[in-house]
C-alpha cells in the first residue's frame, strides 16, 4: 500500500455559539492515497463538508480547528498561517463545489479564470498558461476548447461548467481534490459523466479525491474507500465494497437500508431507526374520520388530454415577433381512482409544469384536464372552488412551502378556513388533531416553521394537504430535498395515505428508484413530451424507448446490497 | 488698512481673491441688475448699477435733496405753468467721446416714453420735450406739474448718435426677450465705464478719467467689481473674510459682528421705506376669519386696538436690532407731508387695546390670517411672527402665512387677503404718491395697491386734485387733511421705517443713501 498523500488525524472543529461550544467535526481520522477516491458519506449536518473545508483551510469564521492534525505529503498543514495555507490551496489541494452555476465568476471568461489560476501557481508566461488551459479544457472533454476559452460561464450548460470547475481544480496538478457534492445539482445523465471524469482523472493523474456526498449510489459507483460520518464523528470507514455489503455500525446499516432499491419493489421502506426518534403516523385514526367519496364516474379520476404549455421566451409587442418555448407539448394521460401515477424526467422536461397546470397554478395553452369528467380549464369559479377542495399538493422544498411568518396552526387551518369546512370554534381542535395524526405534537401548532426539521415540515405540509380530505394529491418531488432516512418515512406515509384512504396521487420525481417503489404506472417525459407510459414493473423490466433505457442505465445501483 | 487682524492677514495671505486693492471696490449685494438698458426696467438694483455709468439730469443726495447733475439748474417757466425749463451742463462727454447736448436729452426722453419703456409712467404727464439751443430743454406737461423733477432722478441720458449707430434707438423689449446693444453695452456720461458683465455673476467697471466731475468728486475708487450674493450668511461671510469690502443688504443680526470685526464697519441711515399692515375693512365679511356675517376689521376700534397691541419698541430692539424707527404713519420721514407728530401717534397699550376690543364687541377676540412675504423686507417674516404674538395678547388668534413675494403681492393687488404686510418707498418724496397707490379707492389705474377696501369719494377727489395744484401751500394743506383721515381711520397699522445698513471695510468712506443707491463717485478710499 502506498503512503497516504493526505492524512487527517483526530480532527475536531469548533464553533462558538450563543448556546455554547458546538463541535460539528469530532475526532475525525481518515487517509487518502494517490489515485484513490474516498467517499465521505452522511446526512445533512454530519460534518462531512466541514472536514473538507478544514482540509483546504477555508473554514468560515468563527469555526476553527480545535485539535487534531492534517498532514499533506508528510507536511503538517493545519497549523500553517493564512498565507501558507493559501499557497497550498489550488496548488496542492484542488476543490470542487456542489453548484457549478455559482462556482464560476460570471463576469470573467473561463479562459481568464483558468489562466489566472495557472499563472498564480505555475509561474509560466501568458501564452504557456493559455496552452495549458486549452489542454486542460480538452482533458475534461470540453468540445472546441479554443472557442470556449473566450466564452463566459453563462454560455455553458451545468455539466460543462462542472467540467470547467474540475479543470480549474486541476490547474497545477494537485495531489488531492476535495469534491464537495460535485454532482448533486446535476441531472442523472450528466452526473454519471462527471463522476466518470473524476474516476478517470484519479487513475490517470494519481490525484487523491475526497468525494463528499449524501448519495449512497454515488458512493457505490465511484469510490474505493468510504468513510461514513454521523453527527460529526466517523462511525465506519473501510473499502466501499466491504462497508456496503457488510456494514458493521448500526447507523451505516440503517442508512443503507433506507436507500430505495431500484431492482425490486418493496411494500414498505425499511425504517431507519438509528438516531432518529421515530414518530408514528396514525393512519388508522385518520382513516376512521375520513369520509370516503364516491368513485369517479369513469373510473378515471383525472384525464389529461393533449395539454400544452408555452412560455414567452422573447417578448415583443407584436404577437408574430414573439418567440415561445414549449414547456409541455401535447401531453395526455389518465389517472385511475386510487392509483399512484408517476411522472419522471430530467430537469426541464416539463413534469412540474404539468403538475402546476393540474393544480390550477398555471393556465393551459391548449388541451383539456378533466377531473371526474369536468374540464377544469373551462370551469366556472364556483366549480373551480369545489375542485380545489378535492385536490392538494405537496411540494419539493419543505422550507419554502410553509410560510415562515405564519404559525403552524394558521398554515394548517388555512384550507379549512378558506373552504369554510368547519365552524371557526372547531378549527383549532381539528388542526391539533391533524398534527397529532401526522406524527407531530399538538404543541407544534403554536410554533413557527423554522423550529422544525425538514422531515417534520414535510409532515406539516401533509397535514395541510389532508385538512380538506382531498380525493387527489399531487406530490411534486416531495422527498428530493430530504435525507435518505427521512425520505423513507415520508414515502411510507404517502403509501399509507394511498392504501388506507384510497387517495389518488400524481407523483413527480427524477429519482427512478423512488418512483419504482411508489408508483403503479409511470410516464416518462423528455423535453415537454411524454415519451413513454407503462406499468411501473413493465417499464423497469422492459423499457420501450431508448431514452427510458438510458435513464434506467444511469441509475446508481447498489449492486452490492442485498434486497 | 488701518487695523489688521490676524484673521484678515491670513485671509490676505491665503486667499488670492482676498487681496485688498486699495482702489478696488469689491461690492456685493443680494441682487443683480436685470439689464443695462437705461429705460427697460424701473427697479432698484438695476438703477444702482446704471447710476455708476449713466446719469440723469438731477439726482438726490443722501438727504433726499436734489443735486444738479447733467442739468445745472431748473425751474418752471414763469409764463407757462405747464413748462419746466432745464439748463444743461456744458463740456460733458459720453464715454465714447461724444458731447452731451440738448438733442441727447430730447432723444432720451422720447426713448423713455416708448411703449417698451418701464419708465414711461413716471413721465406720462410730459407731452413734449423741446431743445432750446444746445444746452437748454423745455419739458411741457399736460397740466401744471409741480413735482415733475422728483420723477426724473432715475431717468438716464443716452447719446443719440451712439444709439442710432448701434441700432438701439428703441427700448429693449424686455418681456419679449429682445437683446439690444444697450442691454449689454454702456455709453453714458457717468464716472465709471463698463469693462465686463456676466448677469447674476459679476460686473466690472473702471473709473472714467474723462469724467466732467473728475475734480469735483473724490473718485478714489478706480475699479468696481460688483457681485450679487443671494444667501445672507454667505454674503456676510464674504465681507468677514475680506473677499468683498462693501456690502449692501446687510442682515441686521450681523451688524454687531461686522462692526466689531477689525477693519470693518457698518453705517446706517433711515431708508425711504415704511413697513405696515393693511386690513380689509371694506368687505362685509372676511374669508379668512372665524367671525360669520361680520367684518371685525370694519370697526375702527378694532383697527385701533390692533395698532395699540403692536409693541413697536420691542420689534425695533429685538427683531430689528435697533435698526428701525417706529412709525406712526405710512410715510417715510423724507416725504412731503410727513410730520413728526403724526409719526409719533402710535402707542402701545395692551390693556386699553383689550378694552377697545371689548367695546367693539370682540372681547373674546377672533381669528384671522396674516399674509406676509418672507423674502422682501428686512426680517419681514420675523416681524409678522412677532405681531402674531402681540395680537394674541388681545385675543386675536393670527394664523401666519409667510410666502415668497412672488405669491404675496398678487394677493394684495387682486384683493385676496384681508390682513397683510406691505412696505412702501416714495421715489417722488411726496405724499401724493402714497395716496395714489394706497389711499385712493381701487380702480384700474389708481389705488392699485390699496388692499383695504377703503373707498372715500370725497377723499379720492381731493387726492386727484393734488396732481395739478400749483399752489404749494394749499396743496400741502390738502395733503395734511388727507393724512388726518388716514390716521383717524387707522387705515393701516404702521410698524416702522426701515434703516439701511451698509457694511464696508474701514478704508471705504461713504454715507448711506436713503434710497439704497450708492454712488461710487462719492466714495473715498483711504
Amino acid at each position, binding site marked *: 500500500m502506498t503512503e497516504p498523500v493526505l492524512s487527517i488525524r483526530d480532527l475536531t472543529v469548533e464553533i462558538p455559539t450563543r448556546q455554547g461550544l458546538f463541535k460539528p467535526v469530532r475526532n475525525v481520522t481518515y487517509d487518502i492515497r494517490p489515485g484513490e477516491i474516498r467517499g465521505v458519506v452522511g446526512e445533512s449536518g454530519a460534518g462531512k463538508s466541514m472536514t473538507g473545508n478544514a482540509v483546504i483551510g477555508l473554514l468560515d469564521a468563527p469555526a476553527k480547528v480545535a485539535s487534531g492534525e492534517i498532514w499533506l505529503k508528510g507536511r503538517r498543514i493545519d497549523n500553517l498561517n493564512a498565507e501558507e495555507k493559501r499557497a497550498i490551496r489550488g496548488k496542492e489541494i484542488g476543490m470542487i463545489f456542489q453548484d457549478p452555476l455559482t462556482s464560476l465568476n460570471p463576469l470573467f471568461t473561463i479562459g481568464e479564470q483558468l489562466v489566472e489560476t495557472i499563472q498564480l501557481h505555475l509561474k509560466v508566461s501568458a501564452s504557456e498558461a493559455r496552452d495549458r488551459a486549452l489542454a486542460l479544457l480538452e482533458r475534461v472533454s470540453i468540445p472546441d476548447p479554443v472557442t470556449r476559452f473566450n466564452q463566459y460561464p453563462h454560455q455553458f450548460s451545468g455539466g460543462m461548467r462542472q467540467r470547467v470547475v474540475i479543470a480549474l481544480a486541476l490547474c497545477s496538478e494537485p495531489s488531492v481534490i476535495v469534491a464537495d457534492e460535485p454532482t448533486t445539482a446535476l441531472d442523472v445523465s450528466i452526473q454519471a459523466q462527471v463522476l466518470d471524469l473524476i474516476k478517470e482523472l484519479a487513475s490517470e493523474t494519481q490525484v487523491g479525491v475526497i468525494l463528499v456526498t449524501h448519495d449512497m449510489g454515488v458512493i457505490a459507483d465511484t469510490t474505493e474507500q468510504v468513510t461514513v460520518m454521523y453527527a460529526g464523528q466517523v462511525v465506519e470507514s473501510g473499502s466501499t465494497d466491504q462497508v456496503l455489503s457488510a456494514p458493521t455500525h448500526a447507523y451505516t446499516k440503517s442508512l443503507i437500508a433506507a436507500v430505495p432499491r431500484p431492482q425490486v419493489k418493496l411494500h414498505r421502506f425499511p425504517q431507519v431507526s438509528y438516531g432518529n426518534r421515530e414518530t408514528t403516523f396514525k393512519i388508522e385514526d385518520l382513516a376512521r374520520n375520513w369520509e370516503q367519496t364516491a368513485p369517479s364516474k369513469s373510473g378515471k379520476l383525472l384525464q389529461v388530454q393533449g395539454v400544452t404549455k408555452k412560455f414567452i421566451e422573447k417578448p415583443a409587442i407584436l404577437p408574430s415577433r414573439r418567440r415561445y418555448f414549449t414547456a409541455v407539448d401535447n401531453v395526455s394521460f389518465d389517472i385511475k381512482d386510487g392509483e399512484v401515477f408517476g411522472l419522471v424526467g430530467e430537469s426541464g422536461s416539463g413534469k412540474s409544469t404539468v403538475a402546476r397546470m393540474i393544480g390550477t397554478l398555471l393556465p393551459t395553452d391548449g388541451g383539456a384536464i378533466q377531473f371526474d369528467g369536468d374540464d377544469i380549464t373551462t370551469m366556472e369559479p364556483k366549480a373551480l372552488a369545489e375542485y380545489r377542495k378535492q385536490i392538494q399538493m405537496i411540494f419539493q422544498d419543505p422550507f419554502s412551502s410553509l410560510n415562515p411568518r405564519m404559525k403552524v396552526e394558521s398554515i394548517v387551518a388555512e384550507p379549512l378556513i378558506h373552504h369554510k369546512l368547519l365552524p371557526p370554534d372547531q378549527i383549532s381542535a381539528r388542526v391539533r388533531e391533524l398534527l397529532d395524526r401526522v406524527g407531530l405534537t399538538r404543541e407544534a401548532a403554536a410554533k413557527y416553521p423554522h423550529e422544525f426539521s425538514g422531515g417534520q415540515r414535510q409532515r406539516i405540509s401533509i397535514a395541510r394537504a389532508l385538512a380538506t380530505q382531498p380525493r387527489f394529491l399531487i406530490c411534486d418531488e416531495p422527498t428530493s430535498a430530504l435525507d435518505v432516512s427521512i425520505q423513507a418515512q415520508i414515502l411510507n406515509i404517502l403509501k399509507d395515505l394511498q392504501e388506507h384512504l384510497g387517495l389518488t396521487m400524481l407523483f413527480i420525481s427524477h429519482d427512478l428508484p423512488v418512483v419504482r417503489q411508489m408508483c403503479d404506472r409511470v410516464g416518462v417525459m423528455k423535453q415537454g413530451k411524454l415519451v413513454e407510459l407503462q406499468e411501473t414493473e413493465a417499464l423497469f423490466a422492459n423499457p420501450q424507448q431508448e431514452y427510458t433505457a438510458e435513464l434506467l442505465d444511469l441509475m446508481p445501483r447498489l449492486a452490492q446490497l442485498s434486497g | 488698512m488701518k487695523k489688521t487682524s490676524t484673521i484678515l492677514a491670513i485671509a490676505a495671505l491665503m486667499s488670492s481673491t482676498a487681496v485688498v486693492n486699495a482702489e478696488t471696490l469689491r461690492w456685493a449685494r443680494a441682487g443683480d441688475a436685470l439689464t443695462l438698458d437705461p429705460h427697460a426696467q424701473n427697479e432698484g438694483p438695476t438703477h444702482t448699477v446704471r447710476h455708476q455709468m449713466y446719469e440723469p439730469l438731477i439726482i438726490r443726495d443722501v438727504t433726499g435733496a436734489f443735486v444738479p447733475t447733467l442739468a445745472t439748474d431748473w425751474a418752471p417757466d414763469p409764463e407757462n405753468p405747464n413748462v419746466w425749463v432745464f439748463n444743461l451742463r456744458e463740456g460733458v462727454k459720453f464715454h465714447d467721446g461724444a458731447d452731451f447736448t440738448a438733442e441727447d436729452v430730447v432723444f432720451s426722453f422720447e426713448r423713455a416714453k416708448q411703449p417698451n419703456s418701464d419708465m414711461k409712467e413716471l413721465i406720462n404727464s410730459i407731452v413734449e420735450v423741446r431743445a432750446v439751443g444746445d444746452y437748454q430743454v423745455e419739458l411741457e406737461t399736460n397740466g401744471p406739474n409741480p413735482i415733475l423733477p422728483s420723477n426724473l432722478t432715475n431717468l438716464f441720458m443716452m447719446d443719440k448718435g451712439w444709439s442710432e449707430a448701434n441700432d438701439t434707438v428703441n427700448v429693449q423689449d424686455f418681456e419679449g426677450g429682445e437683446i439690444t446693444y444697450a442691454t449689454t453695452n454702456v455709453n453714458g456720461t457717468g464716472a465709471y465705464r463698463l469693462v465686463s458683465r456676466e448677469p447674476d455673476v459679476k460686473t466690472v467697471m473702471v473709473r472714467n478719467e474723462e469724467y466732467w466731475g473728475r475734480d469735483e468728486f473724490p473718485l478714489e475708487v478706480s475699479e468696481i467689481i460688483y457681485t450679487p450674493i443671494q444667501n445672507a450668511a454667505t454674503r456676510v461671510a464674504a465681507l468677514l473674510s475680506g473677499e468683498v469690502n462693501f456690502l449692501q443688504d446687510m442682515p441686521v443680526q450681523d451688524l454687531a459682528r461686522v462692526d466689531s470685526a477689525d477693519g470693518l464697519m457698518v453705517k446706517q441711515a433711515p431708508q425711504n421705506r415704511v413697513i405696515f399692515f393693511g386690513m380689509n375693512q371694506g368687505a362685509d365679511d372676511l374669508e*379668512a376669519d372665524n367671525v360669520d356675517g361680520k367684518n371685525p376689521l370694519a370697526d375702527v376700534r378694532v383697527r385701533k386696538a390692533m395698532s395699540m397691541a403692536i409693541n413697536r419698541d420691542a420689534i425695533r430692539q429685538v427683531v430689528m436690532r435697533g435698526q428701525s424707527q417706529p412709525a406712526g404713519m405710512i410715510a417715510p420721514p423724507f416725504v412731503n407731508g410727513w410730520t413728526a407728530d403724526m409719526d409719533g401717534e402710535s402707542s402701545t397699550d395692551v390693556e386699553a387695546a383689550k378694552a377697545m376690543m371689548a367695546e367693539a364687541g370682540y372681547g373674546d377676540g377672533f381669528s384671522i390670517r396674516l399674509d406676509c412675504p418672507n423674502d422682501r423686507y428686512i426680517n419681514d417674516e420675523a416681524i409678522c411672527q412677532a405681531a402674531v404674538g402681540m395680537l394674541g395678547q388681545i385675543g386675536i388668534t393670527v394664523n401666519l402665512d409667510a410666502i415668497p413675494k412672488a405669491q404675496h403681492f398678487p394677493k394684495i393687488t387682486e384683493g385676496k387677503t384681508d390682513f397683510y404686510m406691505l412696505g412702501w418707498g416714495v421715489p417722488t418724496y411726496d405724499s401724493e404718491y402714497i395716496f395714489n397707490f394706497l389711499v385712493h379707492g381701487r380702480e384700474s389705474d389708481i389705488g392699485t395697491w390699496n388692499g383695504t377696501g377703503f373707498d372715500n369719494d370725497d377723499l379720492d377727489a381731493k387726492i386727484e386734485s393734488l396732481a395739478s395744484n400749483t399752489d404749494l401751500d394749499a396743496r400741502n394743506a390738502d395733503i395734511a387733511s388727507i393724512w388726518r383721515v388716514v390716521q383717524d381711520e387707522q387705515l393701516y397699522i404702521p410698524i416702522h421705517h426701515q434703516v439701511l445698513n451698509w457694511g464696508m471695510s474701514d478704508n471705504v468712506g461713504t454715507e448711506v443713501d436713503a434710497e439704497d443707491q450708492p454712488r461710487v463717485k462719492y466714495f473715498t478710499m483711504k
Partner: protein
Amino acid sequence: MTDQPLVPDTKAAPSRLRRALDSDLFYAFRRSPVAMISSAVAVGLILMAVFAPFFAVTNPFDPASLNLMNGFTPPMEPNAFTGETFFMGTDDQGRDVYSTILYGMRISLFVGFSAVLFAVVLGIILGLLAGYYGGWADSFIMRAADVQLTFPAILVAMLIFGIAKGITPVEHRDQMAIWVLILAIGLSDWVQFARVVRGATLVEKNKDYVSAARLIGRGSSLIMIRHILPNILSPVLVIATISLALAIIAEATLSFLGVGAPPTQPSLGTLIRVGQGYLFSGEWWILFFPACTLLALALSVNLLGDWLRDALNPRLK
C-alpha cells in the same frame, strides 16, 4: 444538498415579549454597544418629543405667551430687559430654545414618521401589485417610478409643495403645511420601497407557500397581504428606518428652500434655517442646540438602521 443546515430564515418573528427577548435579534442587539446607545438616544429623543408639553418649560407654539423682549437671551444668562434666564437661551422671537427644540422635534418626527409611513404604504401597495401581477401593471408602475426618479427627490418635494399650496383653500393653508410636507416627502420617497417590495415579491411569489395558498384558492389580495407581505417586511423596515432620518433631513432642506414648516410652528429644520442666520452674529445657541439635536436624532436613527440592516441580513451572520 449541503451539510450546512438549511435554515435560510433565522429571523424569528416572535409575537410575544418572551420570544422577542429570546430572539437572535435581541441577542445581537445586546452585544452591540452602538445599537444600544443609538437606540437609547433615539428613544429618549422621541419620548421627549412626544411628551414635549411635559418636558418643556414653556409652550413656544402659543404666540400669545411669548415676550418678544426675551429675544436673543444667551444660555444661562439673564435677559437684559426682562431678567429671565433660559437654559438654552432664546431665539429671535423670545422663545425658549429648549422648549422650542422639543416641540420642533415633535413636528420633525411627526413629519418624518408620517412621510415614511405614507411612502411605505404606497411603496408596498404598488410594489406588491407590480411584483405579484407583473406584466402590464408592473410596466405601468415601474415606468411611473421612472418618472418619479426623473425628478430628484428634492424637486419632487418642491413641486408637490407648490401644487398643494396652490390647491389648498386659503383658510386651511397654515395647518396644511405640515400635511403637504408629509405628502411631498412621502411621494418623493415611495419609489425605493416599491422597488424593494417588488424585487422581494418576485422572489416570494415563486415560493411554494404561495403556490400552496393559491392551490387552496386564496384570492390574490389575501395572498399578497397575508402571505407575501409579512415575508418582505424586514428589508422594508431597514429602509424605513434610514428613510426616517432622511425625511427629517429633507424637511430641514425644504425649509431652507422656503417650503418647510411654518415659522410659528417651527420644526427642527425651520429652527436650523432660522438659526443659520445667526451663525456670524454670535447668537450661536439658536443654531447650535437645534443642529445638535437634529444630528443626534438623525445619527442615532441612521446608526440603528445600519445595525438593523446587518442584523436582519441572515447571510451576514
